[in-house]
């Protein structure tokens, strides 16, 4: 076992921090906050270009597709530093791992360099109005027609649909097969005729949450497919094997800095705040009840960190993990909620003040977090679904 980063990894971290200090301007932050999304806008696009030119995206991917055959942990270090300022880089969600595992040579050569240089952005097209936790029950239909597929149906909570270039789509291709065995994945350009995107506004709509506050965005979308025709070459992996291709990608997607950090950043924030501030002479950091609770949360945050490290280590070993990613996704989001709710009770009425309000603490991050913290325990597999997976995959418990 080795719980330290290598000197080379430490200097990579330093390099990224320096880059952030040199390049993230207040105007750029404003652009990001205004657009209410993680990226898009001339300044942010330029920033992304620089990040990718530094070789900080897709580090662990093979060299022939624009990566560096590097370590997943190096990638994690980059992700963590950017996640701290609210910028998501590097992971490219669950699409990239799935393409690496199941894509054709042509797909790998097309998509992976594009994901690295920021010209391709995936929207995750899995969830439907009637298929959330029961994802395999999805109904969006793809029917083969010669060398083409015709797609009809609806996707929901497709957060990146309004700025993504492609949708990473799960559709039903065999309605007669058992539900897990009749699904196929397609990589569909968003500009394809017949796709309509409609915004859905989340409870974080107004006022805008400060960057990096919460997992959920201001805006998400529903996406409608009406006789969308695509060539058969847009299929990822084998026909009707999409469930397994997608599940593998999701498993890897559950691991990663942004999730870990969103769950624990508030732990740092509250500790640092109470160290440096008081409320009209009330020194919160000397309150014995608060001290005990903050220490407890701090320990829990270490477990978030270590579970993330465990998943990274397993990726580095090249092994498949059975339950560890799910375990991390049970623990970290629920920890984030405990922290957020505890902070509310520590700061009292100040913790309800949103961004822009007079007397809001730290731009209202704690109040915004109350609207968003539980979200990370819902998306990409709720904590209840994750517990099912730990029990069934990890512990071999029988299905009901």
């Amino acid at each position, binding site marked *: 076992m080795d719980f330290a980063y290598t000197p080379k990894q430490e200097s990579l971290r330093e390099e990224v921090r320096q880059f952030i200090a040199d390049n993230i301007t207040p105007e750029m932050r404003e652009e990001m906050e205004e657009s209410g999304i993680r990226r898009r806008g001339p300044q942010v696009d330029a920033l992304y270009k620089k990040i990718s030119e530094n070789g900080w995206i897709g580090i662990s991917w093979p060299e022939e597709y624009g990566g560096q055959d590097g370590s997943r942990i190096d990638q994690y270090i980059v992700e963590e530093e950017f996640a701290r300022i609210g910028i998501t880089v590097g992971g490219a969600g669950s699409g990239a791992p799935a393409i690496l595992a199941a894509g054709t040579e042509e797909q790998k050569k097309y998509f992976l360099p594009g994901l690295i240089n920021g010209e391709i952005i995936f929207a995750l097209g899995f969830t439907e109005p009637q298929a959330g936790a029961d994802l395999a029950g999805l109904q969006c239909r793809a029917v083969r027609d010669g060398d083409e597929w015709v797609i009809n149906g609806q996707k929901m909570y497709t957060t990146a649909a309004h700025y993504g270039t492609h949708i990473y789509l799960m559709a039903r291709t065999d309605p007669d097969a058992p539900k897990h065995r009749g699904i196929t994945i397609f990589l569909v350009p968003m500009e394809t005729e017949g796709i309509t995107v409609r915004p859905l506004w989340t409870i974080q709509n107004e006022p805008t949450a400060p960057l990096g506050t919460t997992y959920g965005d201001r805006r998400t979308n529903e996406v409608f497919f009406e006789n969308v025709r695509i060539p058969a070459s847009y299929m990822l992996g084998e026909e009707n094997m999409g469930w397994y291709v997608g599940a593998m990608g999701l498993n890897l997607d559950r691991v990663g800095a942004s999730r870990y950090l969103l769950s624990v950043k508030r732990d740092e924030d509250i500790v640092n705040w109470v160290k440096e501030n008081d409320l009209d002479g009330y020194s919160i950091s000397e309150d014995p009840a608060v001290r005990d609770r903050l220490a407890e949360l701090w320990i829990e945050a270490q477990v978030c960190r270590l579970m993330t490290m465990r998943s990274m280590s397993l990726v580095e070993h090249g092994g498949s993990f059975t339950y560890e990613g799910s375990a991390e996704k049970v623990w970290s989001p629920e920890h984030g909620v405990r922290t957020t709710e505890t902070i509310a009770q520590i700061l009292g009425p100040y913790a309800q003040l949103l961004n822009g309000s007079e007397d809001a603490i730290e731009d209202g991050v704690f109040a915004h977090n109350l609207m968003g913290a539980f979200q990370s325990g819902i998306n990409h597999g709720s904590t209840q679904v994750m517990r099912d997976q730990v029990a*069934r995959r990890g512990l071999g418990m*029988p299905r*009901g």
Partner: protein
Amino acid sequence: MDVIPNEEEQMVKNLAREFLEAECPPSLARNMEKDDLGYPPELWKKMADLGWLGMALPEEYGGQGLSPTYLGLIMEEIGRSIAPVPALSTVVPAGTIAQHGTEQQRTNTLPKVSQGNLVLTWAIQEADPRLLPENIHLAATSESDNYILTGTKMFVDNFVCADQVLVAARTAPESDLNKGISLFLVDTNSAGISSTSLTTLAKDKQSKVYFDQVQVPAINLIGDLNQGWEIAREMLDLATALICAQMVGATRKDAEMAIEYAKNRVAFGRPIGSFQSIQHLCADMIVWVDGGQLLTYEALWRMDQSLPASIEVSQAKAFCNDKCVATCRTSQTIHGGMGFMMEFDLHLWYRRVTAWSMRLGTSFEHRSRIARGLLDQPGRVRLGVSIPALQ
């Protein structure tokens, strides 16, 4: 960064598990609850022969010179099999003697420990059991070539079978220079020592030990006079990391028993393990044990590297106290009435893990230490950057 045990570490763990599965059935723990010594000397000797007792002792004293992590992996397996042996109470003071003892003290003690011919323990806690120097009142006064010890120690593990006990005594009032605590290695059969056995939840051996004008040769002082608290604190940190390993090992086994039981126990016409209500309890148990294990390994690894580890140790113990007990209690719940039956083995684990949660620092004590580190020194905290402890 690689938090997965490497091949060698895994091998040591596997071998320990195989040995204990063959040599240490639950009936042994059950029988030793009624035994006067509380441990089987034959098993102890075999463990010594396997090199476990000298695992982290220097090679010149018959040890293997391995790091605390290896000791932790062994303790984890000892915990898993709830082996009734005075391992923790022996290897920890032995490590302290190796580190801070004189050449003579090491030569007299360590080879015997490695060979399984000397059982040790420590005596630090008193009536106020919080592990703070101000709670140590047992007095040691100098008299020619001896120190005279008078006072009472509480919760001394394995005193009934220990040959020597490392005692923390007050030799001076606390001052700006030091805490006024000194450590002495004392023969348990010295004149003036008496003890009464405490009946514990684990039904293992703990004693209240009375020192009445006990003469201890001055050459038995470990470390410098009045400077013993730092050594004791270091010893307690190692002991705490190791008891965490023991708790994690025992707790994982306890959880596995519940998972197995749930797969086989049929109610409402199906295995109860197919109900989500049970599955989610099982998932939580594994998440908790995994968390405790990762925290414990990180603390041990930092000790291996001679990095400050006090905060990491406290993190592990506070978490294990809460979550290992919660896991074992959940396991009891899943077992229903069966787990409440004396003839069923589950309670052997539950009673031990809960008892261990109260030893070497409660959750409140450890969180208080973490809070001091977090809140009472200048500078911003950052997750992933270790915090120095304030004693």
